[in-house]
């Protein structure tokens, strides 16, 4: 436990070491720490922003889906109306075609029956002539009696 010049040597060494630390150790470490703190702060801010963006995007997506659903509903309604109209038109057209066909058929049937009746008349006239021939047993000149026969025919 003696005091000697070691004391002053120690003092000088102490101040030199402290100076060295101040010059070469402290500033780079503090710089790195501050920079990292800045980076972390930036990262946190970016994370907050990203979270806000995400929430915003979610809202937007919900909104878009709602719009899409609405427009789909509108489209379906329109399509259904169009389909109903098409069916209705087709039905009407079909009915019209059926009606026209029936009318044509009926007209043709009337013409045919008219024609048949006229043919029947001709044959009746011939039959009547033939019957009258047989009854009279004599030949009737068809040409001579054409006026009579035409009269008879029109009376049938």
């Amino acid at each position: 436990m003696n005091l000697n010049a070691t004391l002053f040597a120690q003092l000088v060494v102490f101040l030199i070491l402290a100076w060295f630390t101040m010059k070469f150790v402290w500033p780079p470490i503090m710089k790195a720490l501050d920079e990292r703190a800045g980076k972390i702060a930036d990262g946190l801010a970016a994370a907050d922003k990203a979270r806000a963006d995400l929430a915003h995007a979610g809202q937007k997506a919900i909104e878009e889906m709602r719009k899409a659903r609405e427009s789909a509903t509108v489209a379906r309604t329109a399509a259904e109306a169009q389909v109903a109209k098409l069916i209705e038109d087709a039905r009407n057209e079909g009915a019209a075609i059926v009606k026209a066909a029936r009318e044509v058929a009926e007209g043709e049937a009337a013409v045919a029956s008219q024609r048949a009746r006229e043919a029947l008349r001709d044959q009746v006239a011939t039959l009547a002539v033939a019957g009258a021939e047989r009854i009279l047993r004599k030949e009737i000149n068809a040409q001579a009696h054409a006026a009579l026969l035409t009269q008879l025919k029109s009376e049938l």
Partner: protein
Amino acid sequence: MAAEHAPNASEYIIHHLTHLNSLGHKQAALVDWSVFHLDTLFWSISLGMLAVLILARAAAKATSGVPGRFQAAVEILVEMVESQSKSIVHGDRSFVAPLALTVFVWIFLMNAMDLLPVDLLPRLWGGVYAAAGHDPAHAYMRVVPTADLNATLGLSLGVLLLCLYYNVKIKGFGGWVHELFTAPFGSHPLLYPINFAMQMVEFVAKTVSHGMRLFGNMYAGELIFMLIALMGAAWAGSASSAMLWVGGVIAGTAWAIFHILIITLQAFIFMMLTLVYIGQAHEAH
């Protein structure tokens, strides 16, 4: 040759407590400014260089990206010192905070020399000394610089000088002189001498207690390691000496573990008091 026999307990301890100095034998006078403790200088300067080189290495590789373990450890230390200095010293800390870091790391390393086996380095030195043709009984080597009063008082004197410097720097020379005579009791001509005396006592007490506290703790710790080593050395074949040896192992283990706390705590206390004293120099009364 004097010591053919094994040293007895008191010789062992005295040998371990004797410094390797520039005289070559034990310093006779209590104070002799022409003498150097070579062992204290060697170990404290070596450890100081080691400390600043480790820190400088960390500083050179420091990045603001993801730190490695080494960088993170140094950063934890730096952040601890930075937050302590920030809370204690109000003003420009561009020198004070690095100073506190130096104090902590350096004193911690010097204290940690206590954890090496108490005979290891002295015995190696004895071997070197003997190989150089000298009497190993005179191969003195103390490896814990902080267990030398010169080292700790040198540090506390350094802190005192810094306190004086900051007193003048912050308050101006006139302001500081004014404070020396008017604080703590107040500005009255009758109180000037009392104030001044109190201030002187305060400076002396701060400095002496600052250095003595560290020295006392480390010196006592070193002494206890020596006593425990003596217990271990009592091995002589008998049952009671074997018990002493076992006791030495147990006590050595316990004391070394406890000493981990002490060396850290003393380094921390020295750093904190350095900050407090320099912080006081920053504050006007």
